[in-house]
């Protein structure tokens, strides 16, 4: 009896400790798995899958940040977000391959056009729907319809054949016995720089603060003088631009892409968003890299063809056990 009570007390303490620092508890759990894999599978295999995980994490994170900001500000689960990535990749293809300009021009073009699509859709679709007071299901279904139109519209113009950008996919860099493609390294660095800038923007600029205020409490933000429509437009511009960039980075890192690119990535982006806590930009950033690592580390234990499904399983498990995300506070839901 006493031991049971002691155990209960201990469990209570543990729960309180976990409850107080969910981020730390999540991180500790994650580190424990990492260490177990490191010991069981050896430093080299672990290190190499970690490198791969960081590479895929870098475009997951970019895609997920846009998806989560749109959710945070508009409470809209945008099923067309994946197809924004596809759109960006094909816009880059037009400039880089069809026109033949350098990739950096293509990247900027992809960011600008995808951002413009985000803004255009806000003006012609989402804003009128909000004005009508449309609820969650109509907006969900509308975004699904939009996803169909973008993906298949691209397919009608460009066909289903595999495309590739003019990037160097053969040369690799080796360090400490690990290898990473030259392009993959550039992808990771680009993503880290851009995500840091986005993070700083959200934290310190007036625009970023207003976005976070709107995400926190739309009515309160509006009452305190936030120009809602302007901030929403900026949100779409940011989300679209990041999605365009993510699409190009995916196309560069993986080497080939088809009109299904974004559709196939969408659930992984949801997984990243939900791992990090929906609506939380920093969470999505962490969630993206976390998902990349989970997927690649899983290949140490089970066949690599299951890795995408492992990501979806992580999505469901997170939703069931911690719907506010691994690092999330209860406020986020």
């Amino acid at each position, binding site marked *: 009896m006493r031991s049971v009570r002691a155990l209960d007390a201990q469990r209570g303490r543990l729960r309180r400790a976990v409850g107080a620092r969910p981020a730390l508890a999540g991180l500790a759990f994650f580190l424990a798995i990492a260490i177990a894999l490191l010991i069981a599978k050896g430093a080299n295999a672990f290190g190499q899958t970690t490198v791969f995980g960081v590479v895929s994490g870098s475009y997951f994170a970019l895609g997920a940040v846009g998806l989560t900001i749109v959710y945070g500000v508009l409470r809209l*689960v945008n099923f067309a977000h994946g197809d924004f990535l596809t759109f960006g990749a094909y816009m880059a293809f037009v400039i880089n391959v069809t026109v033949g300009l350098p990739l950096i021009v293509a990247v900027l073009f992809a960011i600008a056009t995808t951002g413009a699509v985000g803004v255009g859709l806000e003006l012609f*679709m989402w804003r*009128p*729907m909000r004005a009508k*007071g*449309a*609820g*969650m*299901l*109509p*907006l*969900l*279904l*509308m975004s*699904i*319809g*939009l*996803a*169909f*139109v973008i*993906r*298949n*519209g691209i*397919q*009608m113009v460009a*066909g*289903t054949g595999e495309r590739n950008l003019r990037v160097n996919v053969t040369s690799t860099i080796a360090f400490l016995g690990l290898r990473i493609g030259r392009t993959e390294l550039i992808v990771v660095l680009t993503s880290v720089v851009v995500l840091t800038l986005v993070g700083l923007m959200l934290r310190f600029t007036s625009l970023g603060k207003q976005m976070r205020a709107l995400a926190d409490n739309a009515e309160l933000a509006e009452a305190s003088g936030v120009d809602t429509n302007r901030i929403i437009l900026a949100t779409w511009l940011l989300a679209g631009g990041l999605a365009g960039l993510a699409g190009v980075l995916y196309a560069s890192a993986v080497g080939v892409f088809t*009109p299904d690119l974004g559709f196939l990535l969408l*659930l992984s982006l*949801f*997984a990243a968003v*939900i791992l990090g806590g*929906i609506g939380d930009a920093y969470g999505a950033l962490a969630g993206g890299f976390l998902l990349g690592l989970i997927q690649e580390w899983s290949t140490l234990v089970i*066949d690599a*063809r*299951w890795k*995408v*499904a492992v990501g*979806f*399983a992580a*999505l*469901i498990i997170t*939703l*069931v056990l911690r*719907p506010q995300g691994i690092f999330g506070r209860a406020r986020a*839901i």
Partner: protein
Amino acid sequence: MTLSSISFSAFGQAEFWIGVGVLAGIYGIFVLGLQLNVGFTGIINFGQVGFMSIGAYAMAILVLKAHWSFWLSLPAATAVAVATGLLIGLPSLRLRADYFAIATIAFAEIIRYVAENARGLTNGNIGLLGFDSSWVSVSNSIQGWLSTSEIQLPLLLVTWGLFGVLTVVMRRVQGTPWGRVLRAVREDEDAARALGKNVFSYKLQSLAIAATLGSLAGYLLALDLAFLSPDQFDPSVTFTGYAVLILGGLASYVGIAAGTAILWVLLEGTRFINLPLSAEQIAALRFVIVGAVLIGLMAFRPQGLFGKREEMVLGG
């Protein structure tokens, strides 16, 4: 746009439209499940294609790998689909509506990955064949009685017959006290709970029935194609189902029949339009149409063709 210059023989056209009718009927049964979930219970099931896939694959695997009788494999496959529905519903029905939607689409995608990768059971992308010999002999005898040369006519009759029966059953069910509790759950979960109703259990039952209907649509699709492969079960099937549901009008049974017939005539009709497009582009065009139907309806007529404004829970 001009009509195709390719002339179809009367025989060819009948065969073509019977094929369209079979697909429309299969989607009708599929959408009855979505209707119950979305229209009458207010739960957003985005994973209906997963149940369809489980029904079709469980039937084919039981027949081919376990050498069960085809007729016995049908209820068993439905049982598997229902069990999976309970398994996915138990943890995820407590989630908020949009999280539930994401969880169910992830579930359906996991099922598709299993169909693709558990090659010992499903043959992966090579697919499964030859599970339908019992059905083919029945179909041949029906063809004999009707003295018709249309191979797919028996399946058309069975599909629409089943769809008709299920529609009547589902309508009846809506009128029972059970059905009224479902609507109460849809309208105001807290109020239903305050009346002592176990909201969670009602939602779970609703999902289990949708899984049953999905598995029925699954076998019929398997019989229609005489072949199963994972890419027949991608999420666009679920969303085409949503287009049917919204086109007909949420919470309207006439709407499902009309919606599925109209959408499939529209989709298959693209073949008769003489556009300078490749087969690949026509395939893409069909999904552009599905997407445009969804967007257009949501923007201009969210109650669809036959939906009633007072039944509209879309705004909620």
